[in-house]
């Protein structure tokens, strides 16, 4: 069964690299590109919950913290694993991010490590 992963990032290059890198790695993975936080929430409101969300923290408008909060507050979505995928490397962001989210991955990231982490979550 195909697994749906949302990549929410305002940088189209990052979205492209992940989409190509992940879909090549596994035919059963479908990456949905989403360019900002608001559109991520819109997607969730109108579609079945995805299997995983890769979420950038620093985005214009609704940022990653805001998106994660809305997801975890909604009982229909709070089970969705979230990976923060971010250039924010300060200890606070990482630690506070890890309390709520499943993984905190620093940019630039190693695609193989990202694949491994996704594999762990998706099984």
């Amino acid at each position, binding site marked *: 069964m195909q697994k749906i992963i949302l990549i929410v990032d305002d940088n189209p290059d990052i979205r492209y690299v992940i989409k190509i890198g992940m879909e090549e790695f596994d035919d059963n993975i479908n990456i949905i590109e989403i360019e900002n936080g608001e559109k991520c929430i819109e997607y969730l409101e109108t579609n079945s919950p995805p299997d995983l969300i890769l979420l950038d923290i620093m985005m214009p408008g609704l940022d990653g913290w805001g998106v994660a909060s809305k997801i975890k507050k909604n009982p229909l979505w709070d089970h969705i694993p979230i990976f923060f995928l971010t250039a924010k490397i300060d*200890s606070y962001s990482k630690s*506070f991010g890890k*309390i709520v989210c499943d993984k905190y991955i620093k940019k630039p990231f190693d695609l193989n490590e990202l694949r491994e982490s996704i594999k762990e979550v998706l099984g």
Partner: protein
Amino acid sequence: MIFSNRDILSELLGAVQGIISEKTDEEYAQIAVSTLMQKLQVKFPFLNNISFQSSVWNIDVDVEQISKKEVCKAVEAIIRIVYMDLKNEAGLFFLSEIEVRTKPGFIHEIRENGTDIDLLKIEHHVLFRNLNRLKLEFDNKNQNQQKQSQDIAVGKEEYLMNLEEIEKELLMLLQTQNMAQEGVLTKLNISLDEMNMMLSRLIHFQLLRYVTNDEIELTEKGFNYVKDLNSNHTTLEQ
């Protein structure tokens, strides 16, 4: 001041939420604190009596039936989860912020009832010192400055802090100039993370304090330290 169990939990949760909120956002901070408590409910079932309603933590009166020592064990567990995950530099800041953001006497109250803040600080300090030493092994360009730093420390037993030379430079800079963050980074040729690490240590040693959320100044102890540093430098030059 006497703190009830509800007071203790309310003070702690408010402080932790405030700290997380400053680095993330308010809603996320509330979710993070709720998640922390959910994780700890297995060990401390009475945490189930806490909920977030209408922008405040609502703590059921039943919590008063629990022994204060048990509540303070939960307090230590909450602090420990965040603190130890903050690794070295930011952890010191976290603990000092808890103290700043709670009512006077809070730290004394939890310490008296079994929250071993001092042990947490020592564990953290040892971790920090070890990491710092490791870093120094890769950085021998400051060896001469280290030697000078140690010389200055001799005879000044009250300053067992053994500050790095660059930390002393930062203190002297703060004494003589009113600089923006970028200016300090450029002047000392350090990264933002390195500066935050130094600030955490200097705040921990009570040489610096926060005036506002983003403004730092020397404490009286800090001024005296810099004064001694200057006189030692003068003596060495003579």
